[in-house]
């Protein structure tokens, strides 16, 4: 009864991993998910030594909140699958895959928590009955979800050859399916509310991650988010949301910025707002790099040098006592100086190198990035003129002051106290907004089209009358100027400009390799992709500090896995998605596909 009627012969769903009746499996999952959520009200351990203090009855805390969220999510998806009225909107696409993924996420996060308690406190004896109850309930929910039939259907009357193995049935159950029916149109204010709610939820999830203690709480959070986000996606919620935001792009952008600007208001101390401010710097530079890599298709491996040029230029005119120039420009002038210096540097590097193509350009930019760093090291008074103070850098950069508003002091805004980094965070939001505006407008114009054309096929672009060299130089210069802009704020946040901040690769962002990773991971050529990618790439290493030497190893592994399973990036450009997944021809109307009958014929022929 939960299967929507399909035209033609009744298609059969691929079987689930475990042979269970569908309704029974759904009911089991729902009940077990409810039990999992309820178990977070119990104490999981007796000692408050485990981070988050999971010893209270009736008040979930720390990692229990993750399990609670997972249980509720699984329950909601399962109820939606059962056909409960009013919950159908939760699963516009798949029904099994979201339940299964949510159950897996809950199971993984819960068992991780229990394992972490046992390991950290030394033995299973530290678990209270509540912990065992939670583990058992999460396992039951997972088993129930494994009994659900796959969303995908096989045409009726067609033998499927040998029965698929358990692993095939498992991957089949996780496979994405397209939206079942066009969504019911919401009224205008309804869509606006949906966008607002989505961004509020996003802010909450992000804030929770930033505030999570390093160590097990953050790892548990990460495990859960990595598995739960695909659940939302399989359910079709993300595509529904992107449909809606595409209709209200300006509002969605504004909502995103308002949500982001609310972040410092949620923070009591400056401990995490500095991470937020650094993420914004990193994300802004990544977006600038996206102009160069994503739009114009120029692989730039030395991009962090432009951030460095902006930072050094701003440091020199910042009024720092160590500055060789000893100038103190007002902020707007420093901002322009940083951007202009980067622009000039970009043109100087670009003019000779952009005559190269592809790999050659990548290697030359890599070289220039290192040249910049080494030049800054050597302009120290002994091996060169005294400009940058060498490895010591330019320290003691004073806080900004705009119209008497000193960024170094806490200020009360709307009853919230915003301290130093909160101030910089808010300033950086404005800079990011400006860069977003530039990116959007440049991409959707004659210039942006020419960039994409050059990326797609340079010879053809030239034959269409595009002056390839000039446009590539323009992309390079624009990208450099945007990075320089971010650099001016960056240097005030870190208060010291040193050459070591601007390396090709290193364990912490920003460096050229991480910037490129942020762009590719997030989604080349898109607006939100690099922003999301940069946030993740900054947050995860910052929070996984306790792994020390293994941090980069795991990080690299995660990148490899992501590129294997989602080469188009987290937030893909429509073009890229089509490029990497040939079968998903999203822009072709469904009626152009082969009719079911032909596929069946093809199948029989293939068997014959």
């Amino acid at each position, binding site marked *: 009864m939960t299967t929507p009627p399909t035209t033609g012969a009744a298609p059969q769903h691929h079987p689930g991993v475990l042979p269970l009746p569908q309704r029974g499996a759904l009911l089991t999952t729902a009940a077990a998910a409810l039990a999992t959520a309820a178990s977070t009200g119990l104490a999981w351990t007796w000692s408050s030594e485990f981070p988050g203090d999971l010893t209270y009855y009736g008040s979930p805390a720390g990692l229990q909140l993750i399990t609670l969220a997972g249980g509720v999510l699984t329950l909601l998806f399962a109820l939606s699958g059962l056909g409960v009225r009013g919950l159908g909107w939760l699963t516009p696409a798949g029904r099994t895959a979201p339940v299964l993924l949510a159950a897996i996420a809950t199971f993984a996060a819960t068992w991780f928590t229990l394992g972490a308690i046992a390991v950290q406190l030394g033995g299973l004896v530290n678990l209270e009955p509540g912990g065992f109850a939670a583990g058992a309930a999460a396992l039951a929910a997972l088993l129930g979800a494994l009994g659900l039939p796959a969303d995908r259907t096989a045409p009726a009357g067609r033998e499927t050859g040998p029965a698929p193995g358990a692993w095939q049935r498992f991957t089949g159950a996780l496979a994405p399916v397209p939206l079942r029916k066009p969504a019911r149109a919401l009224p205008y204010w309804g869509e606006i509310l949906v966008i607002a709610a989505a961004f509020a939820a996003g802010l909450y999830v992000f804030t929770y991650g930033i505030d999570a203690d390093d160590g097990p709480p953050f790892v548990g959070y990460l495990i859960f988010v990595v598995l739960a986000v695909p659940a939302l996606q399989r359910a079709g919620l993300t595509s529904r949301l992107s449909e809606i935001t595409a209709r209200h792009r300006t509002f969605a952008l504004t909502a995103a910025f308002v949500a982001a600007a609310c972040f410092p208001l949620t923070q009591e101390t400056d401990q995490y707002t500095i991470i937020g401010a650094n993420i914004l710097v990193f994300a802004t530079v990544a977006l600038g790099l996206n102009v160069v890599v994503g739009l114009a298709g120029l692989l730039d491996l030395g991009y962090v040098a432009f951030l460095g040029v902006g930072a050094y230029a701003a440091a020199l005119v910042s009024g720092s006592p160590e500055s060789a120039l000893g100038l103190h420009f007002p902020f707007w002038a420093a901002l322009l100086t940083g951007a202009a210096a980067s622009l000039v540097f970009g043109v100087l590097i670009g003019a000779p190198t952009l005559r190269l193509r592809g790999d050659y350009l990548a290697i030359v930019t890599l070289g220039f990035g290192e040249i910049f760093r080494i030049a800054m090291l050597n302009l120290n008074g002994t091996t060169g003129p005294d400009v940058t103070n060498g490895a010591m850098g330019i320290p003691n950069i004073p806080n900004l002051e705009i119209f008497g508003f000193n960024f170094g002091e806490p200020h009360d805004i709307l009853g919230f106290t915003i301290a130093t980094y909160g101030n910089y965070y808010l300033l950086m939001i404005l800079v990011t907004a400006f860069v977003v505006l530039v990116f959007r407008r440049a991409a959707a114009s004659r210039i942006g089209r*020419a960039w994409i054309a050059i990326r797609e096929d340079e010879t053809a672009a030239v034959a269409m009358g595009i002056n390839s060299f000039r446009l590539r130089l323009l992309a390079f210069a624009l990208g450099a100027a945007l990075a320089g802009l971010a650099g001016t704020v960056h240097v005030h946040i870190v208060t010291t400009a040193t050459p070591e901040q601007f390396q090709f690769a290193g364990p912490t962002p920003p460096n050229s390799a991480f910037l490129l990773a942020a762009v590719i991971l997030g989604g080349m050529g898109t607006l939100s992709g690099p922003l999301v990618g940069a946030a993740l790439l900054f947050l995860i290493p910052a929070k996984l500090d306790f792994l020390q030497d293994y941090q980069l190893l795991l990080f690299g592994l995660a990148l490899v896995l992501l590129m294997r399973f989602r080469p188009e990036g987290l937030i893909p450009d429509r073009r890229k998605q089509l490029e990497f997944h040939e079968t998903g021809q999203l822009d072709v109307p469904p009626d152009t596909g082969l009719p079911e009958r032909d596929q069946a014929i093809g199948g029989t022929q293939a068997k014959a």
Partner: protein
Amino acid sequence: MTTFPSTAEPAGTADTTGTVLEAAGVTMRFGGLTAVRGVDLTVRTGEIVGLIGPNGAGKTTFFNCLTGLYVPTEGSVSYRGTRLSRKPHLVTKAGIARTFQNIRLFANMTVLENTLVGRHTRTKEGLWSALLRGPGFHKAERSSEQRAMELLEFTGLAAKRDHLARNLPYGEQRKLEIARALASDPGLLLLDEPTAGMNPQETRATQDLVLAIRDQGTAVLVIEHDMRFIFNLCDRVAVLVQGEKLLEGTSEVVQADERVIAAYLGTPFDDAPGAEEAAEVRAAEEARSGAAPGAAPEDSPPDAASGPATPEGGAR
């Protein structure tokens, strides 16, 4: 199909009867290899000129010399009396647009975006205009889009404006390439094997399209191996063999010339073995083409040019 919008005058229309393209003594050497040797070619307004020759004769190299992708070693190329720059994008700006032998669309852009890229030289809005978004920007974008849509309607692709170019069927990709080239309002259109790989219906549709383009005042220079296509369409045909122009003239002159046949098929021996079999095959071919509906027997050249599109696969 017939309503070609005439809002766009070909760039720099000074005279409507004069010479559009004049190539004089174009020579292209790659090291010791001379790919094109001293080729002269003139295209006048309202003409369709064909360029044929066996594979490797230097046709595409000659095209690349015309459009600035290659800088000719010797010789000059003029468009409407002014000598062309050696930068390909300036050649396009001057008014020569081209398509490619292997389709070179912007595969991951939509049909409309592809055509809009073709408008690049005819619009001026730079980065500042794009960032500031004044009224001029919106006006230019609107008029570009309008012109692009006119061209898509002309080529019959309007319904697929939002499809990615890579998802179009082969024949429509060819059409889109032509629409994209036309978007730069050229006075001369260079088509490099526009019907390669097409079925007969698609070839006929392309033929109609090329005639419609000519009727709107754009001269066309076309490389093609499909002889029926060439001789149906072209006012004049030039034959390129081993980098040199063998012959230039009307279809009849070229079809009748023994040297052309020899260039494609090689010279028969005296008392050639298998001559009888060849005569039989020819008789059968003629009988078949005479019986086939839609074929044009009066166009069939005596020998080489009849039959399938690639006669040069023959007896060398």
